[in-house]
């Protein structure tokens, strides 16, 4: 049965989300846009963990890993936005093609 949802449907959904995030990371020039792509990729990893936790492992370990993904995503986005705000204060741009040197 094609339409009955099982593990593969969730994996294909998260694969599409992952590829959209990768396209966003590669094509955006605005660094906040790149951060949005990274968030999409992290969400797709979370869907994968929880789907495997229900269908393959049949315990709660995948949900624990999804929780740790939330922690890592939160701290990552806080640090990245602090760096972006710092660069914007000094250079008044967030375009990654105008940010060439590490010191600023």
């Amino acid at each position: 049965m094609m339409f009955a949802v099982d593990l593969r449907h969730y994996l294909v959904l998260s694969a599409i989300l992952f590829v959209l995030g990768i396209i966003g990371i590669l094509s955006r020039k605005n660094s906040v846009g790149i951060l949005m792509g990274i968030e999409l990729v992290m969400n797709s990893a979370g869907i994968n963990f929880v789907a495997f936790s229900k269908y393959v492992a049949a315990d709660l370990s995948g949900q624990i890993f999804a929780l740790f993904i939330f922690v890592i995503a939160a701290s990552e986005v806080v640090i990245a936005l602090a760096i972006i705000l710092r660069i914007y204060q000094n250079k008044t741009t967030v375009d990654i093609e105008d940010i060439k040197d590490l010191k600023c």
Partner: protein
Amino acid sequence: MTAQDVFFYIFALITLVPAFVCVFHPNILYAGLSLFGSFFGVAGIYVLLGADFIAATQVLIYVGGILVLILFAVMLSKNIYGAKFQDEKKKKILPGLLGLILLGFLVKFILTTPWNMTLTDEAPLPTVSRLGDLLLTDYLLPFELASILLLAALIGAIILARSK
């Protein structure tokens, strides 16, 4: 098709259409706002997978925290509607092709791999107490490391973002 399948397709649509807008819309403000729908769709997918606490945390942390931070950063930088924030269309062609090839490989491997599915009976639904038990027994070390990571991120962000 059961009701659960219908809900899966609805939530998949709620997830993928705003993600598509987020990647391909030229204006960064609309891209950030469309992430809102995408995160809610992922929360719905978590509910369908029987992860109630994860779904609530997704709404709290992603929608309430991360998305607000991203929109805050977008609006702090000036000229949101100016030409500087509009990406060109033709920059999307090569990453789009690369993404399509990657998606083809991923879907092929997902459909051809023999998954060892051991789904027995439905787990009892309030998962909160069992998650808490696991966090304080089997996963105690990662739990404590996560708190150290959050503290370090907090201090680092304050040091980076304060004005001189």
